[in-house]
């Protein structure tokens, strides 16, 4: 067995430019946290950070799926709508049809994965821009939500309420079960990307699809797989959101695809594909969460400032990407 030495040797690689965005995000995060602690006494409570995880667990899962897609050089705009669809389908089946929770769960996950699979097939076999295919997927999923219902449906299923209300405690602090699920997703994604052929092929396609094809890598399978993964992660994110909100609503997660993309990019993944890490995405989500927390602590600024700060950060990180990637010609 070699895992530990492997991990170490991979982490101990020479400092290269591909890690630069990751360090930048880490530094930014430390800076934000430091300034929070310096300004507000209550900020130093570890629960503040844990709350960021609790409030953004679903976004984290969705962003992990998005990381796979962006690593191949693609994009998935449908994730927010798939999240909403998942909450809507879950709520209807649980509340109005009276289905048991353990039938609903696999079903909604399957719906998400199937949607992703379908979009992946269209993108690959018909050679259509991912942007437009997933845009169509977004309208489709959001439209389906409204055909199910236009009003919010409250969920009072016992399993759902238990997931929403139970706390995993350690010492004085706690997290929700959703955070554990999200972290498991992160760990699995890290493993898949670093140690399996699927993961390495994902990077290869993002690096140079033509070369990847000539090297005999399974382009079709990999490309469809990443959209399926993204669809699955969106559905799982939807489930986590419905745990968090205890409701299904067609208006849930409007614009979440953009938050997910922002988190991935701030986490240092290149939009052109081929370079980036899931851990970066985790940092990206934390940055978004901390901005929100800081603005809440401040209390004077309206919550819309969150968007402004995210916008500014995105600009900064895209510029950073531009500077570190060698320009063609």
């Amino acid at each position, binding site marked *: 067995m070699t895992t530990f030495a*492997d991990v170490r*040797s991979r982490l101990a*690689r020479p400092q290269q430019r591909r890690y630069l965005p990751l360090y930048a995000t880490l530094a930014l995060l430390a800076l934000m946290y430091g300034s929070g602690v310096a300004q507000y006494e209550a900020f130093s409570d570890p629960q503040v950070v844990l709350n960021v995880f609790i409030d953004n667990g679903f976004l984290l899962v969705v962003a992990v799926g998005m990381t796979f897609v962006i690593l191949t050089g693609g994009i998935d705009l449908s994730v927010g709508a798939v999240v909403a669809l998942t909450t809507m389908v879950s709520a209807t089946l649980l509340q109005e049809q009276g289905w048991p929770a353990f039938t609903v769960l696999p079903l909604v996950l399957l719906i998400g994965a199937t949607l992703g699979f379908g979009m992946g097939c269209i993108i690959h076999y018909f050679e259509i821009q991912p942007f437009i295919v997933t845009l169509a997927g977004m309208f489709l999923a959001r439209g389906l939500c409204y055909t199910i219902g236009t009003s919010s449906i409250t969920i009072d299923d016992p399993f759902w309420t238990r997931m929403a209300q139970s706390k995993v405690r350690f010492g004085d602090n706690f997290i929700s079960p959703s955070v554990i699920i999200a972290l498991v997703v992160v760990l699995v994604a890290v493993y898949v990307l670093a140690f399996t052929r699927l993961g*390495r092929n994902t990077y290869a396609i993002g690096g140079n699809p033509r*070369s*990847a094809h000539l090297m005999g890598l399974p382009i079709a399978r990999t490309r469809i797989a990443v959209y399926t993964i993204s669809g699955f992660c969106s559905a799982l994110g939807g489930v986590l959101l419905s745990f968090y909100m205890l409701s299904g609503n067609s208006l849930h997660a409007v614009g979440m695809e953009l938050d997910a993309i922002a988190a991935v990019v701030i986490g240092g993944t290149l939009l052109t594909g081929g370079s980036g890490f899931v851990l970066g995405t985790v940092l990206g989500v934390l940055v978004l969460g901390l901005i929100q927390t800081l603005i809440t602590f401040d209390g004077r600024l309206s919550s819309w400032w969150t968007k402004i700060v995210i916008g500014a950060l995105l600009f900064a990180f895209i510029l950073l990407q531009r500077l570190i990637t060698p320009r063609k010609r």
Partner: protein
Amino acid sequence: MTEAILTMTGISKEFPGVKALSEVDFRLLPGEVHALMGENGAGKSTLIKVLTGVYDIDQGDIVLDGEPVRFSGPLQAQHAGVSTVYQEINLCPNLSVAENIFIGREPRFLGHIRWSTVERRARELLRRLQLDIDVSATLGTYSLAVQQMVAIARAIDISAKVLILDEPTSSLDASEVQQLFRVIRQLKEEGIAILFVTHFLDQVYEIADRITVLRNGRLVGEHRTSELTLIDLIGKMIGKELEVLERLEDRPKRLAEDAVPLVDARELGRKGAVAPFSLTIHKGEVVGLAGLLGSGRTEVARLIYGADKADHGQLTVAGRAVTMRGPRTAMANDIAFCSENRRTEGLIEELTVRENIVLAMQATRGWTRPIPRRRQDELVDKYVKALDIRPPNPDALVRNLSGGNQQKVLLARWLITEPRLLILDEPTRGIDIGAKAEIQRLVAQLSDGGMAVLFVSAELEEVLRLSHKVAVLRDRQLIAELPNDDSLDVDRVMETIASGAKP
């Protein structure tokens, strides 16, 4: 004599309208470097593509290691032991060196990639190629030469019988080429058969044991490098076909007398395209550019026209220094350029003869001042007659014209702008002999009328027949400028190319 590892016999391949290969024989011995030579369109790349299964074969047999084979694609060929490394490096620059060698074939344990094994094996493999680099570093951080060798390492690790190197040295500098050659020699020692395609003659003589020459899809011959002189090789590549061409009356091969040249390029150059050169072109003078394919002929023409930006030197037009910023500057200085690829870079096939002809003139006037229809008709009629474009119908779609007539349309387009310098890049390629003679006569007429012409052609005889002065290029350097007096003939130009008299 050792048994050949690869034998191709009677290979024919036809594309619609073109016989790309006819009855070509080729063999490759283990432990030899075999150079495949030929001008553009000779069939080199078709032969490689037929061998690696990119194209089907119409006729002929391939025997690899005693077994008859026919590959359906490069992957299958690779598994059978025939790997190709192309000029463009087909690797992923964002992955590590080790990963690029092993991706898709990583040693795994229950689906878990064993990175330590991957890196250890990559290191061993590269050490075999005498390359000691950090295999965990990203490929993109290394030079092209190293990347090329990583590609070779990947190729020989997959299979190690036949290695095809298609123009591997085009983007390498001299020391990188030496590094690559060391690796090639090493592989040769190990008994791998190497097929080496290049247009650099020096390199062939440095590394190849045997040379096969193709011309126009036919086998010209297979020779030991030691038994074939450079000049013979060039002769075989170009061929001395005695074409039945209409004789041009012996024109006075005068050298221009104007003190100020129309175009004066001083130390003009562009990194990676052509080394700095100096060239003057006078009014009424035809300057020919001679050299083999890839010697930098087109690059010189493109630099003077400004289609590529020069990063060195100075261009003077009629005594005035000009910074070429692209075709518009060139047109403003009355320089016209008929490109080599008339289909992709010149003519717009969906438009009519008339529209194609007036295009450049309209562009110089600006789109706000359309040329009146009557003026258009006048001009088009004049040039359709003058150049004898057939059919003489200005409303015919250019797509439906023959190659020669398309070329004339392109010429007409530039002629109505009345340029002072006309650059013709391979104007007679792929057109029939009659049209060829007409275009040659036209060039002579134009120069008599005072127009300067820069004439680029792969056919030395044609260059000599038309030019007052011949500039000889080799390996992207202008090596000589020969006045076209009576003593100059094809042999002397070939000698100049062969001897590579560097300035």
